[in-house]
């Protein structure tokens, strides 16, 4: 049984899909990565700010203006780091990207600017009393692992599935004329047996699988009037309508 929490979305095309909700642990580690990156950025800006002799810098209007800009960028960096990534980088801050997570609005929609602002401004409440105390409790209680900011903004952090192409898709190809001919020749009963076998073979015990494959292959070969060959399963794949 799958105990992982999911959110299900039905598209306007009436097709359903579901997201797996990201857990507290992985969100915490991703948060640590983001916090480290933010800390590094803040430190860099502050070093620039402190660079140079203070007395000279403050007397100079241009230097003062530059420092003003640095302060504003510091402010933007602290408050809008997450907002930027969530709105303009598909809901993935670098930490979330690293741990394969994504922020989406409920319903599978993207996290828009007002949502991202609310979600991240509420951090100042979520972060209390000790680092993310409230957030931790709320996420623990909420079945979808949302912190206060998520609840208010109507967002969920979901786990991103692997983008790898499955083997069955990679090896799928159109049939050759001979294969198509062979399939046409198979009587309905054998056709159904082979199809059912190919669909279920992964769940069979090895010895049962081998015995069934050999039985079916000889039966199908007899029906087609051909030689079954050395590998019964390969033969069944070739003549049967496999459900990959």
């Amino acid at each position, binding site marked *: 049984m799958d105990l992982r929490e999911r959110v299900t*979305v039905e*598209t*306007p*095309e*009436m*097709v359903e*899909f579901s*997201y797996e909700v990201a857990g507290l642990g992985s969100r915490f580690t991703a948060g640590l990565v983001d916090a480290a990156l933010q800390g590094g950025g803040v430190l860099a800006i502050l070093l620039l700010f402190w660079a140079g002799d203070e007395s000279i810098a*403050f*007397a*100079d*209007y241009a230097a*003062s*203006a530059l*420092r*003003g*800009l640095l*302060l*504003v960028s510091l*402010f933007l960096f602290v*408050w809008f780091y997450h907002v930027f990534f969530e709105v303009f980088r*598909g*809901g*993935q801050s670098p930490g979330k990207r690293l741990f394969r997570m994504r922020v989406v609005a*409920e*319903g*599978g*929609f*993207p996290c*828009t*600017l*007002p949502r991202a*602002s*609310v979600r991240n*401004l*509420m951090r*100042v*409440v979520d972060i209390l009393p000790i680092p993310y105390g409230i957030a931790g409790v709320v996420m623990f209680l909420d079945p979808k692992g949302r912190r*206060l*900011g998520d609840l*208010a*903004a*109507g967002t969920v952090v979901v786990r*991103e*599935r*692997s*983008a790898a*192409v*499955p083997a*069955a*898709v990679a090896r*799928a*190809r*159109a*049939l050759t004329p001979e294969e198509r001919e062979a399939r046409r020749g198979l009587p309905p009963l054998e056709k159904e047996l082979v199809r059912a076998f190919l669909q279920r073979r*992964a769940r069979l015990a090895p010895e049962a699988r081998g015995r069934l494959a050999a039985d079916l292959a000889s039966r199908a070969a007899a029906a087609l009037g051909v030689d079954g060959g050395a590998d019964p399963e390969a033969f069944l794949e070739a003549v049967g*309508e*496999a*459900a*990959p």
Partner: protein
Amino acid sequence: MNAERILALRRDRWERLGALLERVQARGMAALLPGEVREFARLYRESAADLARLRTAGTEAEVEQYLERLVAGGHNALYRAGGEGARGIGLGRFLLHRFPALVRRSAPALATAAALWVLGVLLAYAVAMVRPDLARDLCPQAYLDRAEAALVDRARTGHADYVRMDAAFLPLWSSTLVANNVQATFVVFAFGVTAGVGTAVLLLLNGMLFGAVAAVFSGEGVAGVFWTFVAAHGPVEIPAFLIAGAAGLRVGGALLRPGAFTRRDALVREAVDAGRLLGGTTVLLAVAALIEAFVSPARIPAAEKVVVGLAAGGAVLAWILLGGRGTRGEEEGPPLPSLGDGPASVLRRGRRP
């Protein structure tokens, strides 16, 4: 059609969709050329149909998950929640039309926020009248120092300013002000999620601080120094702070009185509006900080500062009262519907080739 044939016939399209999706997720829809946007939408719809067919035909879990990821990604890129435009309405239209209309619709919350703040001011001022020492305890040391300095200045030169500063400091000081004020504004909003209690307390405290500082300055006999300083930027800064407070109270109100919705749906509806209110507030605060940095401390007659304050305050008032009228239906947009009730619009235009 059986699963094997679906796979054989469709895999090239899925892989193409996957390649486009990778670009969209990294850099948004703008990463696609106009022709590719159309292709992307078509591939998404076809793949959604393939997913439904594959489920009927029966297939490996791995294949289904692969296709689900593609469909989910396409859906996320192409559709928007109802009431949220495809690409936002643009900063100009937002500021001219939507924000003022939103503030007007938040009038009850704004009135409550203003009442709490004024209550704080009056409370602190009244306390100061009876027990001046208590008012001094309410004030941070920096404000007390400023009052002392103003007293000394006036004794020495017959003239006093709220802050004494070299012109070179102004850009730096101004940005510090924006940062501090916006921060205070963000916090007063964020605490709305404590059912509005935190926001109410912060509004009251901020009012009390204002009242206490005013009382200390007038207690020292330099009230004019404080009021002429506040006159120029206060009429912009205080409304901005109060609007953020109203946004926080609306979030709190959704939790206390959700009306026809569940508490969570009500919270999300109010919070998205509140997020927009906050966006406009940030712009107001930037203007206020410019005035605070370049007009308020300037050595110009008090009357001129008052004129600037009145003009700026009048402009804010006119903006809030008049902005977005006459374009009601379109600019305010439909009320935000409950989540997940369908697409608003599908395509955004891609980058020109």
